[in-house]
């Protein structure tokens, strides 16, 4: 019965339970948000061998800092923002190391080699250009376009206004459009 309740509990309830010492609630939060967090970090070029550690560190930091989580944003947005900060810090350490090449899974385009090549090329260019965006532009772009969050959530998670989130997204798309042509 307890397990069934945990399965339907929202993040806020799980956080409250964890804060009273229920570790199963924390484990459930990790189960729930590991994949989106790992996906968010992976698309930004986190190396495979670091992905696991990054995810773990982001959760650790999130749970340790739960007292400062005011619930203005969702737990996921907050967690993704923590992950993005960790990634930024780690990038400095990785600067002298070989950065993993992001591989795009280009869908089969009816066996048209030219179309496949073009799609692959565009995806590679997009990956490069996403990496070159200013940090806030990149995060807003990915939170919106990859994670599917609305502007309000993005704004709360990143500590900016909703209008500012929209502007960052607009500039990111504009810049990417210019560069992947």
């Amino acid at each position: 019965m307890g397990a069934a309740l945990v399965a339907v509990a929202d993040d806020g309830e799980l956080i409250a339970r964890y804060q009273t010492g229920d570790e199963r609630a924390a484990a459930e939060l990790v189960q729930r948000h590991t994949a989106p967090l790992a996906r968010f970090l992976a698309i930004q070029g986190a190396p495979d061998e670091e992905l696991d550690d990054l995810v773990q560190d982001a959760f650790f930091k999130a749970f340790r800092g739960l007292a400062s989580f005011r619930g203005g944003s969702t737990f996921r947005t907050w967690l993704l923002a923590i992950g993005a900060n960790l990634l930024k810090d780690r990038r400095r350490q990785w600067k002298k190391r070989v950065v993993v090449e992001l591989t795009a899974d280009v869908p089969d385009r009816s066996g048209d080699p030219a179309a496949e090549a073009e799609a692959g090329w565009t995806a590679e260019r997009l990956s490069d250009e996403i990496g070159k965006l200013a940090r806030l532009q990149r995060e807003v772009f990915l939170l919106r376009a990859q994670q599917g969050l609305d502007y309000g959530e993005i704004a709360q998670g990143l500590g900016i206004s909703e209008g500012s989130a929209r502007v960052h997204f607009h500039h990111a798309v504009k810049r990417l459009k210019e560069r992947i042509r």
Partner: protein
Amino acid sequence: MNALPNELPDELPEDMARALRALDAGATRRAGRVDADAVASRVLARLREEAEPASLPRVLPGRWAWVSAPGWMRVTAAAAMIVVVAGSVVLGVFRSGGDRAVAVSVPVAAVGLDSLDAKQLESLLRVTADVRPVATTVELASRSWDELSESQLRAVLQAVQQVQGETL
């Protein structure tokens, strides 16, 4: 997953949306290799590990905290206490015009107990015991370095320097 490839925002141009879907598919495949169960157990273990030492002093008040402290910490604290007491004693001796030879031998403890051999330690303890009657006028229990005045600290320092000069 929160955003399936087909749910990407429609404000993206078609070619960019397609490229992003391809990139996201790669990211999703890589993310799938992260074991959420393993992450959960490692995170919880780290949180437990971090919580334990932090809560110890609060759980073990007063005497128990002292008893449970590591040996080196107790020795250091005892040494610090001896230094404070000894410093107070020296001041007492100086003020009362007592035996200077006894007074200057006490602050050796300030040089560091680790550097003393067994004989010197015995000597230190004997001297401390010998001058105790003098020290009763110096409020032994309430003294600490912070409470000593500048002139008192200077007197202790001079005594230490003198001892060091004699032993070299």
